[in-house]
């Protein structure tokens, strides 16, 4: 791997007392955001990059914790000295979004009004709410304008939303493996995942915290389903094929095929730490995301709200069937129609939607090349 890791990092918290009115009509009277930063903000405060996380991500984007050296950030391979998000050049900020379960205010946090976990009372949050909260964090850090906002998948949607909601505050948007809105198929997958959680007897209408239980079975199924859609058929074939754990058929319903074993392991691991209410919220944020709604569904008009000087790098992956290259090209087309500075790379990588998290010389080369041209 070229470049180095950022090494040991620590997270920080920011408390906000100014109420946040949400897209859903709800209000958060106060909230906390947990975040990490890597590199140094320059004197002109012109070198800040915001990394937005996807469905299951969080603020621990790069490096490791001194007391937990194996807890490596989820996008460590792209951040650090000599890496595309070069911390010798850039000040990189990652946070856990509102509604998350990694330290920012979310359904498992205590609702000050009741003294109990928010649970089902936690308001539905939208991508635009996250952008607003991120903007307030930027204010707190003294960052008037991001050199770039970058994200994959749902993170890319936040980057896109930034260019529309806060056009003056983002000089570049790097939108990877994303889409201007979900398709019916995408929403359908999300709904099956939600149904798995909502129908788990341990869900208790979202207030399972009070029952000292968690809807682990539902969350596990949701993750297993999601995981299938993040991988490519070819990759699954190469990785697992029809391999049997014990070499022969057992003629029962135990784990037999390696792919079953893998998915169950992934499901168990995820269900062990992730909060089911957060999963529900994140999938709803995905479903609702459609910035063109403001403009009668016209994405060209929506992207016309971006700043004429904002630059865009759009990237997709050939094997991503969840957010196909065609979806990224919808964004490209709308940007071209507005004469925006845009480059588009369609990257041939075999890991399906999850490709955006992988280390690949060409993929990282494209992001690196784009970022090196940004004037600070």
């Amino acid at each position, binding site marked *: 791997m070229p470049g180095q890791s950022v090494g040991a990092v620590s997270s920080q918290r920011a408390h906000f007392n100014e109420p946040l009115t949400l897209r859903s009509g709800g209000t958060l009277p106060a909230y906390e955001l947990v975040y990490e930063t890597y590199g140094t903000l320059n004197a002109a405060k012109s070198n800040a990059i915001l990394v937005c996380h996807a469905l299951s991500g969080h603020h621990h984007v790069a490096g490791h914790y001194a007391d937990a050296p194996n807890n490596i950030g989820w996008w460590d391979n792209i951040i650090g000295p000599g890496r595309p998000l070069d911390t010798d050049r850039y000040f990189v900020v990652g946070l856990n979004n509102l509604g998350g379960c990694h330290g920012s205010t979310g359904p498992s946090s205590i609702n000050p009004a009741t003294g109990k976990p928010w649970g089902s009372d936690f308001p539905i949050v939208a991508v635009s709410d996250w952008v607003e909260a991120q903007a307030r964090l930027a204010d707190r850090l003294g960052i008037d304008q991001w050199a770039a906002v970058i994200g994959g998948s749902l993170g890319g949607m936040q980057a896109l939303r930034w260019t529309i909601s806060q056009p003056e505050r983002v000089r570049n948007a790097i939108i990877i493996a994303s889409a201007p809105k979900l398709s019916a198929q995408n929403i359908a997958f999300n709904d099956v995942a939600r149904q798995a959680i909502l129908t788990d007897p341990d869900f208790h209408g979202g207030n399972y915290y009070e029952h000292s239980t968690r809807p682990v079975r539902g969350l596990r199924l949701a993750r297993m389903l999601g995981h299938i859609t993040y991988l490519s058929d070819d990759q699954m074939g190469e990785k697992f094929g029809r391999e049997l754990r014990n070499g022969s058929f057992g003629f029962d319903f135990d784990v037999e095929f390696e792919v079953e074993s893998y998915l169950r392991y992934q499901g168990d691991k995820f269900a062990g730490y992730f909060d089911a209410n957060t999963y529900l919220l994140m999938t709803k944020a995905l479903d609702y995301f459609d910035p063109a709604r403001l403009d009668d569904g016209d994405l060209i008009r929506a992207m016309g709200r971006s700043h004429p000087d904002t630059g865009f790098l759009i990237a997709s992956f050939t094997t991503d069937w969840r957010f196909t290259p065609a979806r990224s090209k919808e964004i*490209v*087309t709308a940007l071209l129609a507005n004469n925006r500075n845009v*480059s588009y790379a369609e990257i*041939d990588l075999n890991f399906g939607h999850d490709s955006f998290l992988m280390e690949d010389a060409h993929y990282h*080369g494209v992001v690196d*090349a784009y970022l090196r041209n940004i004037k600070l």
Partner: protein
Amino acid sequence: MTHLLGRPDFELIAGWIEPGHRVLDLGCGDGTLLKHLIETRGAQGVGVEIDDANILAAIRRGINVIQGNLEKGLDEFADQAFDHVVLSRTLQTVRHTEGILREMLRVGREAVISFPNFAYWKNLRSVLDGHMPVSEDLPYQWYDSPNVRFFTLLDFEALCAQMGLIIRERRVLDEQGNTVEANDDKELNFLGSLAVYRLTQNR
């Protein structure tokens, strides 16, 4: 004689671009021409390129480049979005010749096209000697050539006439990049190694 960026057709094309003009370069390679047009002619430019290494090189140059396959059309571009749509030494590599010509004049006011002339006398002599031509403008062996369409200057003009495309300007160059003069089109077809055209369409 030395030419701009080692490409005599680039020099001609650059001369036709005015400040502020919007240029789409199809098969833009590493973005050399676009970079030049932006820096010296004050043009605004976008490239389309299929090859990964070229996409990387163009982004590194700071060029706006869209990865795509010309055979599939130019759907991402709006009608008449450009002043010039450039296709330099690429037409002979495209299967859907009529399709790409129509698309170029849909998205742009003017198509600027350069291509190697297969009827150039040295190419003809090579074939008469028993071998496919290899030259400055046809720098490939038959087995590794990206070229899929083999045509001459006169063939191209016949197709333009058939499609109702108007030839605004034609420049024909020899292997050294010098402009070739001739008594008639047939002689020009025989003497020219590379042809550069500006096409428009009645709208």
